[in-house]
């Protein structure tokens, strides 16, 4: 996987965790979990984000604002964001020097 994509996936996982902690924290706390490290997690998030190429980072922000998730898995040659077909040539291209975007919706593509 492209190192920048690896960072973007980690960033999105972290954003999901922050969102879940903020929106459903009480539910988790009711089960006995504690979230004392929330501020540190936010700092770690900023540190991770700073390692991402600025143009990709701004693309990520824009798409997250628009769709909720900027990075989506490709399953069965489909972008799971918009269900557009992803040409199989993209798969071989992922191994080279670029983070791939869906040509239809612009989401960043991840092959799980």
């Amino acid at each position: 996987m492209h190192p920048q994509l690896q960072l973007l996936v980690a960033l999105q996982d972290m954003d999901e965790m922050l969102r879940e902690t903020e929106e459903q924290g009480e539910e988790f706390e009711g089960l006995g979990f504690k979230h004392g490290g929330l501020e540190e997690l936010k700092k770690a998030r900023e540190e991770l984000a700073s390692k991402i190429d600025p143009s990709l980072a701004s693309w990520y922000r824009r798409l997250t604002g628009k769709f909720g998730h900027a990075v989506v898995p490709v399953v069965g040659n489909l972008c799971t964001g918009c269900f557009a077909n992803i040409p199989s040539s993209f798969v071989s291209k992922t191994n080279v020097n670029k983070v791939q975007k869906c040509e239809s919706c612009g989401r960043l593509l991840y092959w799980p």
Partner: protein
Amino acid sequence: MDIAEVLKHTSPDLFIPDLEASDKTAALAGLVEGLITGTNIQNPDTILQMLQSRENLGSTAVGPGIAFPHGRTLAVQRLTILIARCPAGVDFDSEDGDPTKLFFMLIAPPQDTGHQYIKSLAALIDCIQDADLREKLLAAGDYESFCAAMTEG
């Protein structure tokens, strides 16, 4: 959600009867390795990073001798549960300081509209409140008897 329903998200390939780990980092690595070995899930580094972040948020060792490492990641496409036992116990930063001997690791995809993952977590936590059951789980000879003990209580 009943326990039989929760156990549908695991399998004999996702059962580690004797995890060996000297510390928390090694335990998490061992759990992720078991997950990768037992499924066709890729990208162990992403999963490990997510779990480590989750532990930094607060330890998931919330039961007596039991931890529930959990979280969402793009690296999985469906809720997957791995069960592990660590007979020697490992320091997992539990509140009471007791070593952790039993792990239920729940890894969910980002989109999970039915909130299966929180419901499964809640069902598991509820189930293991029974001290006799915890003894049975630690003593169970194999995956089948482990699951039988879980469902029978």
